[in-house]
């Protein structure tokens, strides 16, 4: 267990070190997420008043789009320097490598969410402080589910042809259940009479999905990545 954690932490530290040099992935992903929210706002706000229930949907759509972008960029960086192969050659536990990459993506998405949630709260008068723990839980569980599948697929596709378009093609159908649960749970919290009970149900479902997807990903990372 110790070795697993050590490798994972090492991978995260490596990614952080590279990122801190230029903040390229963080800044571009953040900016992209903000523009997505704005574009959807222009689509859904009528005469200055947002349509009912769009806040939750826009938040999660922006997270899905920017998450896909971040995944693509992160692994493109690995591909260009061929560091993924170097990582795989290291005498490290493969699932630990996956966990490290996953943690890195989660960190990035958390930072994006830290900006997007207040933004959505401001622009759509969404009650983000009504049930902050539940909301945070939904976001955490949903992001974990999305990122778990996304990290695996993005790593898988590093050496494939047409990888840029194939990542969304593969990822979106697979993570729709996570998206549905995330949006419906968040919407239950944002509606005029918040329904924490319903939100809890969706949160439980998200946790169930996370358990299934993370386990599957840890289990299949090695056979999928080796020739």
């Amino acid at each position, binding site marked *: 267990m110790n070795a697993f954690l050590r490798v994972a932490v090492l991978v995260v530290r490596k990614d952080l070190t590279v990122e801190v040099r230029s903040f390229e992935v963080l800044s571009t992903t953040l900016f992209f997420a903000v523009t997505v929210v704005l574009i959807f706002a222009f689509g859904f706000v009528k005469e200055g008043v947002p349509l009912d229930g769009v806040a939750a949907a826009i938040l999660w759509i922006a997270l899905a789009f920017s998450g896909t972008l971040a995944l693509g960029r992160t692994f493109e960086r690995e591909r260009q320097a061929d560091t993924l192969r170097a990582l795989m050659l290291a005498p490290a536990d493969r699932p630990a490598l996956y966990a490290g990459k996953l943690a890195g993506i989660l960190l990035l998405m958390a930072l994006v969410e830290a900006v997007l949630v207040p933004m959505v709260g401001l622009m759509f008068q969404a009650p983000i402080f009504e049930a902050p723990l539940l909301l945070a839980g939904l976001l955490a569980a949903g992001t974990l589910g999305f990122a778990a599948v996304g990290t695996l697929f993005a790593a*898988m596709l590093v050496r494939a042809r047409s990888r840029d378009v*194939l990542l969304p093609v*593969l990822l979106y159908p697979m993570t729709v259940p996570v998206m549905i649960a995330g949006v419906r749970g968040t919407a239950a919290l944002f509606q005029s009479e918040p329904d924490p009970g319903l939100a809890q149900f969706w949160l439980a479902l998200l946790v169930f999905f996370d358990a299934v997807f993370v386990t599957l990903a840890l289990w299949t990372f090695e056979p999928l990545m080796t020739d």
Partner: protein
Amino acid sequence: MTTAVKIQLALATLMFAVAPWIVNAAPHEATMGLVYKIYFFHMPSAWMFMLAAIVSGVASARYLFTKNPKSDATAVAAAELAVLFGLLALVTGPLWARKAWGVWWVWDARLTSSLMLFLIFVAYLLLRQFGGPGSEKLSAGLALFGMANVPFIYVSVNVWRTLHPKTSVVPTLPVEMGIPLWFCVTAFLLLFLALLSLRSSLERQRGRIDALYLAEDEA
């Protein structure tokens, strides 16, 4: 083509040919009248769709961990059949729904999950076609994840109250409706098994062609 496949195909053909009579003999249903008879083709299609998804997922898992190309051949064949039967279910369903519920489509759990699973297997075929070398492994991973979705589809009907009839309606069907249903299920199952064998053998033959070309290059 082995004898088993020939028998399956012959039986399936016979049953499909006979099906219209049997379906016609079933009585009208009390509230839905004639249109519910779509059910006799819709439900077996949906069941074969799910079966194909499971077969593809299991074969993919075996391929990932044993690297046996025969498992990969089965996985591809089942994925193609999943797209075929999924298409049948997703077209016959709305045709029935238009009459029964008044709308072509509703975004409830069952329909949405089925559509998503269908898209996953379309993505599988796209990946095989355009992913380049190494896409056997990648698509195996995709199918495995897709299979993880299947229990969710099955459970969703019982967990959420939706317009879709609950799965428990099947055992309570009266005999006159039960017979055509099980007849059609058997016909579809035989068809599925026969097509699975044929399509897998096609995939294995393609592998053989690749090997022959390689041998020719080296010679």
